[in-house]
């Protein structure tokens, strides 16, 4: 039977292009799971999408409190999606605390679904409500409010299940999921299978969840309160091919696996658990039959130094971390640079400084990646710009590391790491090759002799007869690699290490521009802000503003044409989720009076925020030209 075809008389369908839903509830309410499952269904339906999970740093903050609220926002559409959406059209609030912390974001006249059963006096008090907001009529005027006693309906559905009250309570997120499946006409068959698989070890719970999920679906269908369901058609404007849904951390891990196949080497990961990077360690630990060795080290320093040991041994070497862990690894990065061994360091950035905001996103570590080491220590820095792009950039990191015999830093962030989007599966034959040539010939071997073009020294595996040699962190002789304290040699080594990294600019693509190659304003971004900056630029261009955007994925060195691009615009705006890091580097390197747009709230940019800033800056250009500014707005510096 086709479950999608309701047996009851069908309620009217309404077609919509894009929907932004936010699920929020107590961190024990399973909102992340609800969001993820709904995302899968949207992906399978062929929608383009983007997600933004948002959870507290504490695993279980006290139940019902504001601090314990966990949310998951998702934008899905029949068009191309760049961001998880500025503001939700639909808000599902599982308790008063969730309502209180999220309501302000809901669009006027948006759909508000609340779990009536959770609005008890106790929960209202914990959320700081003096009176019940569901009863004073204030919400009905502004929003399309649906009060559904999800707790009770779940209990009723599971009355004969034999489960405890606590166990039943845990099933209520599946009621919510079922209801949303109905509301957006999603196919429930694959989801039923999903649930069964996910809880295959607990068949009673699996059955209960399926039952509740279906109850939620049928409730939407039959209950009088919902009048319309919606249809978001599959996206057609996206490239053809086979897709899967992927988060940034998953894509990063898969990129590392791809690097193993592309290089023919084994991969060694040395890592220490840290939010939000741990998932990469978890995932790579599954793939030991791919020639991958994962080592959960005793600390961050051991993670990277063990990886350096493995690089010396001839493996692809990787360490994964986040900001505070990066700080701990600094000295060892210098060692990798000095010994000129290939090593990939992945920093999944989070709010800093110090412990900062572990679960929140921030473009916190560009300056740390650039400069955070003792001495002159240039290390190539690259950044992924979408969750799926993490795959490409992981491969790129290994390609550069091996080709140039250097540590390489890949920056992703919490937003990319946990956010998801559909990923057009790559053709493996089209991926870049990672060529490895270990030296085996002892004749004329000099440890630090360099390739004329790449300036890379040769990689030698221990175990190769006749090439026994010693390297370390002390300054090296230019050719032999023996310890050298010679003043001129030191300067020559500093220069050649810098030249090697700078030379990578010849080996990376020129910077692409979204829009015209000249104009009033260039929006220059890097990393995870790609979606918001591109969307905002496109919107402004559609309205006739002379604005283009360029999004950097190679940050050290920059693409060779970046200087020229910067000079082709009257004004340069650099939006960053930090207090201005790329802007410092760009100003120093190109002497461009770039302007910043900075947001440091642990949250991604909203498209509207960027649009407002673009308008204001274009206005400044126009004003300076003597023309009347056709837009008004405050310039945020």
């Amino acid at each position, binding site marked *: 039977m086709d479950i999608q075809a309701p047996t009851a008389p069908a309620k009217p369908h309404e077609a919509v292009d894009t929907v932004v839903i936010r699920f929020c509830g107590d961190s024990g309410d399973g909102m992340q799971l609800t969001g993820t499952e709904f995302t899968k269904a949207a*992906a*399978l339906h*062929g929608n383009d999408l983007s997600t933004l999970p948002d959870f507290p740093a504490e695993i279980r903050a006290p139940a019902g409190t504001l601090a314990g609220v966990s949310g998951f926002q998702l934008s899905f559409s029949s068009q191309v999606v760049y961001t998880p959406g500025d503001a939700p059209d639909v808000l599902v609030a599982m308790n008063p605390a969730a309502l209180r912390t999220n309501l302000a974001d809901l669009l006027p006249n948006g759909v508000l679904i609340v779990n009536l059963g959770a609005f008890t006096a106790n929960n209202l008090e914990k959320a700081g409500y003096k009176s019940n907001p569901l009863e004073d009529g204030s919400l009905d005027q502004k929003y399309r409010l649906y009060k559904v006693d999800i707790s009770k309906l779940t209990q009723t559905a599971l009355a004969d299940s034999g489960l405890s009250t606590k166990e039943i309570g845990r099933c209520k997120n599946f009621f919510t999921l079922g209801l949303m499946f109905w509301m957006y006409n999603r196919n429930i068959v*694959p989801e039923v299978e999903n649930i069964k698989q996910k809880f295959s070890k607990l068949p009673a719970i699996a059955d209960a969840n399926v039952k509740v999920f279906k109850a939620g679906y049928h409730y939407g269908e039959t209950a009088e309160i919902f009048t319309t369901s919606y249809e978001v058609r*599959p*996206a*057609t404007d*996206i490239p*053809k*091919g*086979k*897709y*899967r*849904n992927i988060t940034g951390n998953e894509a990063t891990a*898969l990129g590392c*696996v*791809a690097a193993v196949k592309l290089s023919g080497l084994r991969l*060694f990961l*040395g890592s220490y658990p840290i939010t939000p990077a741990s998932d990469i360690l978890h995932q790579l630990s599954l*793939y*030991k*039959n*791919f*020639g991958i*060795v994962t*080592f959960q080290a*005793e*600390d961050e*320093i*051991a993670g990277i*130094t*063990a*990886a*350096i*040991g*493995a690089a*010396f*041994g*001839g493996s692809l070497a990787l360490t994964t971390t986040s900001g505070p862990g990066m700080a701990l690894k600094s*000295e*060892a990065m210098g*060692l990798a640079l000095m*010994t000129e061994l290939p090593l990939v360091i992945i920093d999944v950035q989070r709010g800093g400084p110090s412990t900062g905001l572990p679960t929140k996103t921030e473009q916190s570590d560009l300056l740390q990646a650039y400069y955070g080491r003792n001495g002159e220590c240039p290390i190539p820095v690259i950044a992924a710009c979408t969750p799926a792009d993490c795959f490409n950039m992981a491969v790129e990191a290994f390609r550069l590391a091996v080709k140039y015999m250097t540590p390489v830093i890949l920056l992703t962030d919490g937003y990319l790491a946990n956010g998801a989007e559909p990923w057009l*599966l*790559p053709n*493996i034959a089209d991926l870049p090759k990672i060529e490895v040539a270990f030296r085996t010939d002892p004749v004329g071997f000099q440890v630090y002799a360099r390739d004329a073009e790449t300036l890379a020294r040769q990689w030698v595996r*221990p*175990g190769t*007869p*006749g*090439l*026994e*040699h*010693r*390297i*370390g*962190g*002390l300054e090296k002789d230019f050719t032999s690699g*023996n*310890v050298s304290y010679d003043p001129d040699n030191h300067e020559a080594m500093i220069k050649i290490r810098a030249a090697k990294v700078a030379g990578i600019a010849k080996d990376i693509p020129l910077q692409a521009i979204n829009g015209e190659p000249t104009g009033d304003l260039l929006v220059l971004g890097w990393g995870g802000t790609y979606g918001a900056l591109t969307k905002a630029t496109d919107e402004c261009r559609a309205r006739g503003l002379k604005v283009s955007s360029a999004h950097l994925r190679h940050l050290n060195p920059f693409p060779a044409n970046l200087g020229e691009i910067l000079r082709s615009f009257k004004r340069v705006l650099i939006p960053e989720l930090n207090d201005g890091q790329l802007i410092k580097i760009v100003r120093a390197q190109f002497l461009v009076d770039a302007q910043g747009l900075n947001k440091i709230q642990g949250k991604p940019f909203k498209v509207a925020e960027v649009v407002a800033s673009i308008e204001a800056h274009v206005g400044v250009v126009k004003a300076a030209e003597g023309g009347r500014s056709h837009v008004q707005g405050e310039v945020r510096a």
Partner: protein
Amino acid sequence: MSTNGTNGTAAAPIKLTRKDFTSDQDVRWCPGCGDYAILAQVQKVMPELGVARENIVFVSGIGCSSRFPYYMNTYGFHGIHGRAPAIASGLKISRPELQVWVVTGDGDGLSIGGNHLIHALRRNVDLKILLFNNRIYGLTKGQYSPTSELGKKTKSTPYGSIDHPFNPISVALGAAASFVARTIDTETKHLQEILLRAARFKGSAFIEIYQNCNVFNDGAFEVVTDKATKSDNQVVLEHGKPLIFGKERNKGVRLTGMFQPEVVTLGENGITEKDLLVHDETAPNAGLAFLLSQLEPPAFPVALGVLRAVERPTYDQLAVDQEKKLLGSKGDGDLRKLLHSGETWEVS
């Protein structure tokens, strides 16, 4: 020729000599430093191991002792302060066929790198760890170290150290090390013997080597090394043998009813060899080894030799086994299949 007992490749085809293990670099320790003696013995025993030179790697941290790899004509890695056990772990786990040695000191291994040392030992990574204990920071010119005795006056403790010292052997045993031994730079033969045993042991092997820093802490171990006093202040452990020591070999160590050690004289009060503690380096419980590790002059002789040698699966071997098992059940990983796993859909 001896076969390779533990790791590295099969026996080398040509018998190597000490010279084959001597690099072309000038040795830069202070004249008279105990490090020379240790280097000489290590170079001497290397050919005995039957491991091809190219399959041997020396890894070190920072400090006087950590210059060691430069002087060995093997593969070598001079790391950063304290991190040698971690660097070596990564190397050994990714290349289990290599024989990996770690050279560290009391500051490098027990202070800045203490964490890495204990974790390498508890994991039982098949590393041979030589800790040169000179009870001082030499390279930084004479500050007290984590093995310096209480009250010690140094540049950073002008009024005497108030830092309780570590006993390296006790630390290693506490970290569940499977092979633990102590020897002395000047005891050439004993040092060689211990090095060989460590090399042939399958698992992490920890050797504390008393090393004289004649510049900043001369004579730190004098009572144990001086010809006149040493036999009364050291007991050389032998597996299955009672703990007998002394110039006249008439002293011994026994346990009281409360499991406390006690020095006794053979022939006095009817005491015979049968009353003495018998050394068992393979005892399943490490308690006895711990007790021996704590014996110190003047009340007791220092225990030299192998305190503990109990094999258990090594981390590197377990990693190999796990990979093999997975390859058996899942087969060689297929990238395309992996990328296409989970739910996929076509956009046409």
